[in-house]
């Protein structure tokens, strides 16, 4: 075993005021290297807290943080590459595995195994222990009980990448600094000044940005302004009026690129035996015309683009499509192949970061009475500020209009929850609630007094709006979220 190469570096920054404590392992990548990460982490069996739908998507912002913070090397990635971990193949694998090159993990959660000659780094494989359960979340470490924290894959990856670049633990070297590279996981989830100083010492600071402060993006679609970036709704999908219809309105001056998904069979992994076996997805414009459709995402012409998006469905029978749409009103319709029925999920994700945005997202479908049959609409608020929204649960008013529904939900009840399942607000019959005046003030009061609405100002995060029938009744309902900011 080679002797220790650690060199403790206590340096003073260029301004001469800030002491640093980063520790070097002794190896670096040659200047100009593009360290290509072969991302093969796959998909989780449950929704990740930050709204990302694959481990690759959850982890990649960590690579971007490092890459944007140094000059002489860059990190890039091949998503869903399928490359397995193999030392000596000159491929930088990022994988889940049951062993470290045939050796058991023991207590290790993730291992960075690198290969070098002299002081020149040639390969780094990052291997996550597949026996552990990883989530992805932003903010402080989460402790579900008196035991240890929930594993955050992005935080672990950010640390392991630091090793791959040639950094070691400041605290191990006796330094007392705030750093992702410390040996003990902490609330630090982005690169600290000390981490950056270490990166700059090894590879230089990016031109024009001597002290960058990277900000992790909670989804694959970073965007500066605070806005709605995703909607997903789960419910029992039936026939005719009971198919799942998702709607959204895009406002702005530029086209918006989206990925739409219809999920069914993979829901069984969440304990839903009655999941829809084979969902079909259609995208309609405001005239009702079908713009695009897909059945089984791997069969369509967009398979490759969907796969590299990091948002590919888990199951081959699920559907997805990518569309670039001009501002306007759209609907997605999910139904079962051959009249199949069951619980399904429709999702729409922003796929670019431009200023054009969702201002309304809605879903119509059948609200049932069983344990798994309320209509659950999820949405993500992303950005750096709070977002004011109105959430509505409609039923009786669906019996009117140009496409009346016969079996509408008579009296919908609405609940708003945060991403941890905590109830933030509830409403039954909007006009009787304390927000009646505020709801009228939005210009969007429901047409029927039995319908429900909540006005709320929400910080960035994941939310769910749950609709069920008062007194355990069933029928077709609609849940929608409007962005009230100008």
């Amino acid at each position, binding site marked *: 075993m080679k002797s220790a190469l650690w060199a403790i570096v206590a340096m003073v920054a260029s301004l001469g005021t800030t002491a640093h404590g980063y520790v070097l392992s002794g190896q670096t990548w040659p200047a100009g290297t593009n360290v290509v990460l072969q991302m093969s982490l796959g998909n989780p069996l449950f929704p990740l807290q930050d709204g990302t739908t694959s481990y690759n998507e959850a982890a990649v912002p960590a690579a971007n943080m490092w890459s944007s913070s140094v000059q002489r090397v860059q990190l890039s990635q091949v998503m869903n590459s399928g490359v397995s971990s193999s030392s000596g193949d000159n491929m930088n694998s990022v994988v889940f595995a049951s062993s470290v090159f045939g050796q*058991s*993990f023991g207590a*290790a959660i993730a291992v960075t195994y690198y290969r070098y000659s002299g002081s020149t780094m040639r390969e780094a494989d990052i291997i996550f222990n597949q026996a552990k359960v990883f989530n992805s979340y932003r903010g402080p470490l989460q402790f579900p009980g008196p035991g240890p924290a929930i594993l955050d894959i992005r935080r672990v990856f950010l640390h392991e990448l630091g090793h791959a670049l040639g950094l070691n633990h400041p605290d191990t070297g006796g330094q007392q600094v705030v750093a992702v590279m410390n040996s003990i996981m902490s609330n630090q989830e982005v690169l600290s000044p000390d981490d950056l100083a270490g990166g700059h010492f090894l590879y230089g600071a990016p031109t024009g940005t001597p002290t960058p402060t990277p900000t992790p993006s909670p989804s694959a679609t970073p965007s500066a302004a605070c806005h709605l970036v995703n909607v997903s709704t789960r419910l029992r999908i039936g026939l005719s009026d009971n198919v799942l219809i998702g709607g959204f309105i895009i406002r702005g001056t530029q086209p918006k690129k989206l990925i739409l998904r219809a999920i069914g069979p993979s829901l069984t992994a969440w304990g839903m035996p009655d999941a829809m076996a084979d969902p079909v997805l259609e995208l309609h414009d405001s005239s009702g015309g079908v713009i695009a459709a897909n059945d089984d995402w791997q069969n369509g012409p967009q398979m490759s683009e969907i796969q590299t998006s990091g948002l590919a469905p888990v199951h081959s029978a699920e559907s997805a499509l990518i569309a670039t749409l001009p501002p306007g009103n759209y609907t997605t319709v999910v139904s079962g192949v051959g009249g199949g029925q069951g619980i399904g999920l429709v999702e729409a994700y922003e796929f670019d970061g431009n200023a054009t945005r969702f201002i309304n997202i809605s879903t119509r479908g059948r609200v049932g009475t069983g344990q798994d049959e309320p209509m659950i609409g999820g949405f993500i608020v992303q950005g750096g500020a709070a977002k004011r929204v109105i959430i509505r649960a409609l039923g009786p008013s669906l019996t009117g209009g140009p496409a009346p529904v016969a079996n509408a939900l008579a009296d919908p009840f609405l609940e708003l929850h945060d*991403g941890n399942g905590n109830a933030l607000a509830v409403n039954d019959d909007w006009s009787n609630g304390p927000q009646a005046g505020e709801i009228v003030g939005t210009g969007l009061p429901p047409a029927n007094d039995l319908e429900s609405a909540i006005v709320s100002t929400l910080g960035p995060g994941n939310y769910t709006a749950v609709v069920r029938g008062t007194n355990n009744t069933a029928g077709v309902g609609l849940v929608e979220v409007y962005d009230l900011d100008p």
Partner: protein
Amino acid sequence: MKLFRSLLLLFCVGFAVASVRATTVVPPTFDQLVSDAEFIFEGTVTETRSEWAGAGAERHIMTHVTFNVEDAIKGAPGKTYTIRMLGGTVEGETMEVADAPRFKLGDRDILFVEHNGTQFIPLVGIMHGRFHVQTDAGGRDVVAKDNGAFLADAAKLGQDEKAAITGPALSVADFKSAIRQKLSK
């Protein structure tokens, strides 16, 4: 409450996890160190030898570190004991696990060994299963963790790592006595 169950099902399945405070390894408690170890001994490194192992995608370098056992505390390691670790240098080519303990000739250590021959680093809690024996300024043999910090309170290991290294360094004699006391229970 069925609604809450549904929400948990949709968004919070990930809460049902084990977990961690260190980035790559869960630091074990003192109880876990003692109970999980198959061998515990104090010894001195007398040889390190690295070689290629495995084939194809699993070709890698392994290093064998041999200790002269001076005090067997748990199990019967024999007069000498060799641990097999992933990583090392052969003909100028180095493969290395970040965070792995590094041994050199003459190192004096107290090791908590588990799964030697099958685990990539066969120590309980990887680097947390290795304790240096060092001599302080007063000529007393004291215990330091793998990261070099002096161990002050073994009972705090894995529970409060900062408290474990806060205070006067624990003597080797007291550390071994605490291990034996734990084993006798």
